[in-house]
């Protein structure tokens, strides 16, 4: 199994702890990740506000470079995931845009060849399989009450799972022995860039997400999106100041908790770099 690996800009600057877990997990599962050479920014949520064409050429270049490595590209950031999928679909559906974008790529010696776009969850489900994960995990998460929080872009507007009631992470962590919390907000928005910029309207969304997880007695929130990880984790103090309610709860990226469940070490997975520390069930019991 060989993937072209597209980390995206923020993975390098803001989420090295997440990237560590992705690479460690891939190695553990025998998946070969080859980072795309000289990749560029996907345009995030901002470039499309300036120019539709610019928002397509950036992911198109990434996809073109990826196709040199494999017919599958692994994308752990859901904003990048969305932009890559959007480009693939838009170029498929709109010949006039395709012509323009592909033409510009070709001028730089880049070929347009569509590739399959995978999130690490897709990789685990499709390439490894929940059965295998279950076998490997030995129920290390027994006793842990997990909120699988999916956020927006993993399943919307495109994804294999139900756009509002996905179950992929539920299935994986249930197989690892965790108790899945019935969490009606699992695909509600965290506020994305609005929250990250410290805007109170965005923070109110994060507050409700954390509060509901606490009310339902969760031990940990697990997310498939780096921005969700940021928004849900780093503003917990500010939320306490603003709304006077303790909402502290660890927030792990999907590959971090999965890595722990498969027996990998905390440091190896960047879990030691969390602001809200997380301990595995047996050690919590031991103290």
């Amino acid at each position, binding site marked *: 199994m060989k993937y072209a690996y597209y980390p995206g800009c923020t993975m390098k600057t803001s989420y090295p702890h997440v990237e560590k877990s992705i690479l460690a997990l891939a190695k553990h599962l025998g998946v070969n990740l080859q980072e795309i050479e000289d990749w*560029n920014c996907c345009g995030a949520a901002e470039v*499309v506000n300036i120019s539709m064409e*610019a928002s397509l050429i950036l992911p198109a270049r990434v996809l073109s470079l990826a196709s040199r490595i494999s017919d599958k590209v692994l994308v752990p950031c859901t904003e990048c995931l969305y932009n890559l999928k959007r480009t693939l679909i838009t170029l498929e559906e709109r010949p006039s845009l395709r012509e323009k974008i592909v033409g510009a790529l070709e001028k*730089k010696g880049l070929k347009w060849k569509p590739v399959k776009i995978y999130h690490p969850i897709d990789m685990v489900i499709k390439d490894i399989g929940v059965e295998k994960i279950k076998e490997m995990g030995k129920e290390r998460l027994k006793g842990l009450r997990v909120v699988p929080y999916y956020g927006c872009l993993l399943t*919307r507007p495109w994804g294999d799972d139900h756009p509002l009631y996905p179950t992929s992470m539920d299935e994986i962590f249930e197989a690892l022995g965790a108790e899945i919390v019935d969490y009606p907000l699992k695909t509600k*928005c965290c506020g994305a860039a609005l929250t990250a910029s410290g805007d109170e309207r965005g923070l109110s969304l994060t507050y409700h997400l954390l509060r509901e997880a606490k009310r339902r007695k969760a031990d940990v929130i697990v997310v498939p999106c780096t921005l969700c990880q940021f928004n849900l984790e780093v503003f917990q103090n500010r939320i306490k100041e603003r709304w006077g309610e303790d909402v502290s709860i660890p927030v792990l990226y999907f590959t971090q908790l999965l890595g722990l469940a498969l027996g990998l070490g905390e440091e190896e997975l960047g879990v030691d770099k969390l602001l809200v520390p997380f301990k595995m069930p047996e050690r919590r019991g031991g103290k």
Partner: protein
Amino acid sequence: MSIVGFLSEKQRDRRFTEQLLSSPEGSKILECIQCGTCSSTCPLSHYMDLTPRRLIYLAREGFKDLVLRSRTPWICASCFNCVVLCPAGIDISGVMHALRRLALAEGTYPRDEVIPALSKSFYDEVFRHGKVNEAKVALAAKGLRGTLSMMGLGLKLWRKGRMSLSAEKTRSPSEIREMLREVAGS
């Protein structure tokens, strides 16, 4: 912004509606049945000056100024709830993106929202370097006061190795620049 009383026909701009209809995202807005599913499912609609449904209605009728001065597109977090639920199959999040482009081009965006400035500085950064350090761009967009309010948090993250102010670059930023210029003309 609340609309009370009289909407003058002089405020209508047919070309604006046409512009939106010809954008890749806005082609289906005429099929809207005004059910309000989008506003109902939108996690941020209660903060908006015009609910997404009203915004689409006014855009369809051509009330350009009301639409392009609205805060709504800048509050939208692109969660796509509305898109997957819209019974008329309208790409509502996409319409917000199209409206943002028009508002930025016209210069009618609300000045106290942070996303417009962030979008501009983000684009500049991509244009210059091919890659982006989001933290740097965000701080630039927030200005001095905004930056100071995030200082404590930034420091904590920096200690964990989760914050960097380094400039990221592709190997040949000019390649990206030329491609952007070719397709987007800037």
